[in-house]
């Protein structure tokens, strides 16, 4: 099978580092009360979205749930705009009107940032419907957590996608917990991937701590969808090191479980793979990490110095004016 042109792995590792350092900095700023509302961190799951982005084209539609910082960063939204959004500033990727859970970036084909669990899964089906309607070979990447698979919207969307043969990959980021409820306490099936079978959609299980496996398996799926539009389902097994949100101490899980996944860290793993193959030196890695930290710190400065959204524009985003020409 001919894989699509793969993006440089060192570059992808550097993206994973940027996501992690950005979120560590966001966590710190949240604790310093510079960030309001809810804030859900992705730390530990970086290989999932970065692997997916590496497997897809930049203009493939991408949509996700509320744990969305990484999805915007992976798509190319600037860390400055991402941090400014957390600070509620006018320079944020949603002009400070969306917040942590509602990142949007049209230019980079990042279609949100959706905070009602599974409510965006039908939207993703609609985006895939649009690409088929227009005879485009775009594929829609729809991310959601394991908590989404028990919502009606999820089931309706899978059925519709199967029925209309829509070009979409349903990507379940199974981090084992829907907030504090484990998969085994929420889901009648033992294996989440088996949900897809009920809709005659092919399913694949992927190790989400392994960047290369995520990228290669998704690339294969996306390639087959481009050749012949159809939906596919990927259960990507991963883990979040932090709680569900900033206010969650995660007392529902064991230290041993956390340690087990930390030892399998996706960044450490890709770094080791690259080092073994003599594609990356320690010095290079340290330099990348230093740059990621500096970028994250600079984004805080940018956010702090950015203006608030103007009060007089309060009503400017409720309706658009005009009609189709």
């Amino acid at each position, binding site marked *: 099978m001919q894989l699509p042109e793969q993006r440089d792995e060192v570059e992808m590792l550097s993206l994973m580092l940027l996501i992690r350092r950005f979120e560590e900095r966001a966590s710190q700023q949240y604790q310093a009360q510079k960030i309001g509302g809810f804030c859900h961190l992705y730390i530990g799951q970086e290989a999932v979205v970065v692997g997916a982005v590496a497997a897809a084209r930049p203009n493939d*539609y991408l*949509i996700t749930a509320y744990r969305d910082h990484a999805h915007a960063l992976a798509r190319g939204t600037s860390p400055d705009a991402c941090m400014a959004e957390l600070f509620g500033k006018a320079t*944020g*990727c*949603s*002009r*400070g*009107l*969306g917040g942590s859970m*509602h990142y*949007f*970036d*049209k230019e980079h084909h990042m*279609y*949100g*940032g*959706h905070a*009602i669990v599974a*409510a*965006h*899964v*039908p*939207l*993703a*089906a*609609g*985006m*895939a*419907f*649009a*690409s088929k*309607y227009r005879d485009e070979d775009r594929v829609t990447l729809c991310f959601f957590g394991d908590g989404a698979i028990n919502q*009606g*919207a999820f089931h*309706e*969307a899978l*059925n*519709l996608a199967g*029925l209309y043969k829509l070009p979409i990959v349903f990507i379940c980021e199974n981090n084992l917990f829907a907030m504090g409820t484990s998969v085994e306490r929420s889901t009648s099936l033992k294996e989440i991937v088996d949900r897809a079978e009920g809709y005659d959609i092919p399913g694949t299980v992927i190790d989400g701590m392994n960047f290369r496996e995520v990228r290669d398996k998704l690339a294969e799926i996306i390639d087959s969808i481009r050749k012949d539009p159809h939906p596919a389902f990927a259960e990507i097994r991963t883990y979040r090191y932090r709680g569900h949100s900033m206010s969650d101490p995660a007392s529902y899980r064991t230290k041993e479980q956390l340690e087990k996944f930390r030892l399998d860290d996706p960044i450490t793993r890709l770094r080791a793979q690259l080092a073994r193959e003599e594609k990356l030196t320690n010095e290079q890695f340290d330099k990348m990490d230093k740059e990621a930290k500096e970028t994250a710190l600079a984004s805080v400065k940018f956010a702090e110095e950015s203006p608030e959204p103007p009060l007089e524009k309060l009503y*400017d*985003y*409720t*309706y*658009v*004016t*005009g*009609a*189709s020409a």
Partner: protein
Amino acid sequence: MREITYRQALNEALAEELARDPNVFLMGEEVAEYNGAYKVSQGLLERFGPKRIIDTPISENGFAGMGVGAAMVGLRPIIEFMTFSFSFVAFDQVVNNAPNMLTMSGGQFNIPITFRGPNGPAHQLGATHSHATECLYANVPGLKICTPATPRDAKGLLKTAIRDNNPVLVLESELLYSSKGMVEPEDFDLLIPLGEGELKREGSDVTIICYAQTVPLALAAAETLENDEEISAEVLDLRSIKPLDLDAILKSASKTHRVVIVEQDRPFCGVGAEVCYRIQKEIFDALDAPIIRVAQEDVPMPYNERLEKAVLPSAEKLIAAIKKVCYT
């Protein structure tokens, strides 16, 4: 001008907009092969094909959400609810996704979608199928809502809704689908702006504010009052609930100094409550009597025909209210 039915007027609006813009498509339950549960989409599948006239399974949340997603990437979906009572199954898509997207994305994603279908009580359909949803949706910023009462308004408002770049709810009426009225010829591009009410009858003693199913009721009551009581009633059809034509409301109320609002929804937080508030806030001194609202009774709709009639606004209730504000 020629006389056509409300159903035919909607069908023409759909056909004209589908022909005009390849990004427009119609999706919903039974819209294609069955030709529409109420035959509003009659003949559209044959003319436009299955790519643009799309039958769905019974999955309101799913297909309403698909419409929102398709709208995010540039299509202009028309989503038919077989009745707006079923839109509650898609409530999250209609109130949370469609109208919030523009704000949440900082202005990046507008949602040019039309949700349409019959709304309001029909005849003995019972509690689950008789909802008048306008007051619920009117509470949501980001949605526009229109409520055509005549074939002409049905055609002109639906065409405007489809071209609008925001989410618009076109609340039709099952009881009006077969009603007839004069409409411009087929080749006339009839567009009626959202947010413009229309005086359906001029009068001098009292203003009846109405919309949708209560428009024929108001017109009939006005005739009766003219003949029996020598009361001259002005009938203002709101046509749109949101935006609301406050200018037309205040103009008529300032002229007659007396107002009765007859609405098809429930009384508590109903459309009339908002209209009433706006009038007293703006022109309290112009009023010669307290405003009266005639709405449904505040109960789930009973099946029994006599009880259903008792719940609904009626000519008798309306006439009694008008006489009261006229102190006759």
